[in-house]
């Protein structure tokens, strides 16, 4: 494995400097304070003196623990511990930040703060490898997504690419009145449309890229004498992709 062109191994100390690790388990010392934890891991990363003190202060500010900096970790809430756990990984400004399920067991406010921080880090140019079971987090944060099942990479790409890989399509529901049958007949001539049908209060159809083709579909409806009152798009999402790729059997 290469990282920034450097080989990665347990003893590759130079390459390890490029990585910031945030393990899923809280990798902090509860009998020490936040400052002591940050200073200890900062020293192991080669930081010292004023640079170390400055980075500790910056990280404490970033994870909003400045006012509790000297309290022992055992007195912190779960969310505060999670934030410190992430802060330690950021201390030495790594080129690659590895976050392993950082929002597990975290209250909504802390979770949102963590996600905002990760978004910010990404915008600043840091590569973030983010492991999660929450699909909405991956959808919100990630440019590229890999789906791993039983240690095997099942698929990898952008969200759109993943949806296309598995052939998942959007479900479109038009609440409409008028010449519904004529509209359905015309829509079925579109290559992106399948399963168009008249329902009790409108039309349903399956579309490849509903958002892209919505103007054309509405135009056809108008031309064929249907009056559309509302549109509902049920887009293919990562969850459906994940379930399609990994099956619905319960995991251990």
């Amino acid at each position, binding site marked *: 494995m290469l990282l920034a062109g450097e080989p990665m191994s347990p003893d590759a100390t130079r390459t*390890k400097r490029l990585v910031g690790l945030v*393990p899923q388990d*809280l990798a902090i010392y509860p009998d*020490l304070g936040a400052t002591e934890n940050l200073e200890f*891991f900062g*020293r192991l990363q080669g930081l010292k003196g004023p640079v170390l003190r400055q980075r500790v202060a910056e990280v404490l500010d970033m994870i909003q623990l400045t006012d509790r900096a000297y309290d022992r970790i055992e007195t912190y809430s779960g969310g505060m511990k999670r934030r410190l756990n992430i802060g330690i990984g950021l201390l030495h400004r790594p080129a690659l930040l590895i976050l392993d399920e950082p929002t597990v067991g975290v209250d909504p406010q802390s979770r949102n703060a963590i996600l905002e921080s990760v978004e910010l880090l990404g915008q600043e140019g840091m590569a973030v490898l983010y492991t999660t079971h929450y699909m909405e987090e991956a959808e919100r944060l990630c440019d590229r997504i890999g789906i791993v099942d039983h240690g095997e990479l099942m698929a990898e790409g952008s969200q759109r690419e993943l949806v296309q890989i598995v052939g998942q399509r959007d479900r479109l529901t038009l609440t409409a009145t008028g010449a519904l049958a004529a509209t359905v007949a015309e829509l079925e001539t579109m290559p992106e449309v399948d399963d168009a049908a008249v329902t009790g209060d409108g039309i349903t159809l399956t579309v490849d890229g509903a958002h892209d083709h919505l103007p054309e579909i509405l135009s056809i409806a108008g031309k064929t004498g249907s009056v559309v009152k509302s549109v509902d798009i049920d887009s293919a999402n990562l969850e459906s992709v994940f379930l399609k790729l990994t099956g619905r059997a319960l995991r251990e």
Partner: protein
Amino acid sequence: MGAAWTIARKDLKLRLRDRSAYIIGIVAPLGLALVFGFVLNPISDFTFTARYAVADLDRGPVSALFVDDVLRSTKGVRVVKVASVAEAEALVDATVNPLGGTGDKQGADAAFIFPKGFSADVQSERPAAVQVIGSQSSQTNAGVSLALAQGYASELTSVRVTVATVENLTGRRVDRLATGVKVLQTPNPATLVDETTTTKQLDPVTFYAAGMAIFFLFFTVQSGVTALLEERRTGTMARLLSSPIPRSAVLIGKMLSAFALGIVSMTVLMVATTLAVDANWGPPLGVALLILAAVVAALGIVALIGGLARSTEQANTASSMIAIILGFIGGTFFDVSQAGGALARLRFISPHGWFMQGLADLSAGDVSVIITPVLAMLAFGLIAGAIGMARLRKGLRA
């Protein structure tokens, strides 16, 4: 080395915030040493005192020699001369102290009765007898009186044999009284001083102070190895291993902190027992070398146990059991060196045994006498430690 020192400092900080470290490293061994010290101090300060009555009906030179040169020259003995056997018996019957000597009280722990003609019988070849009456309520002091009389009787027999031999060889009669008195007053030409290593002993107070210190040392340094396994359990090992430091720095850091704790613990115990119960550990340089070697030995053994263990619990249990077994074999609870035979030899399979032996040797000699114990303990530590460290390093994982 910087990373190892950083890890060691962090571990020391954590240990200093952990009350159990003080209990295991200082409070428990010091408490036990002080208890043993206070219990044993009165015994170590014990001075023999006895009051003996003498009814010298003989009034001859041989009985006078016993009273003046034997009884009165024995430290702690007070002699009360009485005129009759009845008076001597009355003094013995008056003794009421069942535990010790009569001291300044009235009465006598025992009485010596020299019958009329005792000296004349000794100078001739007739049998002579001195009667000893001991008090039942002061059996120890009565036993001492019997031993004194028996010793004197043996010397008289020796003199009698010597004089008879001289007379036979020279064919001349010897002035038996003058010769006998001269021989009896002459100090023994040679005394046996037994200084074999097996019989050198620490005083009881120092013995228990040192015994408890080395016994608990193993529990103190155990924390270094269990901290390594604990880092794996709590997840911090993943972060340590992901840091840009050599893996060996993690191991060295743990060992450094355990080594420092061991040295501090032993030093505190040595100073505290010296000040509190007058323990006499010996010359500081020799003691320092022994402590250093003992800490290395303890560290090596617990590293080996930690390297073989699969979990913190397993390592703790195994380390505790082995520390207790080695402590018993090594004679930290009772002085097995005086037991002789296999038990005394067996103690050398334990660093505890070498440590106690080293201190005992040091109490009777200079620093050079501890070279063997120090080398033995270093060998224990380095061999066991090398195997243990290799296994621990191999098992370093998140």
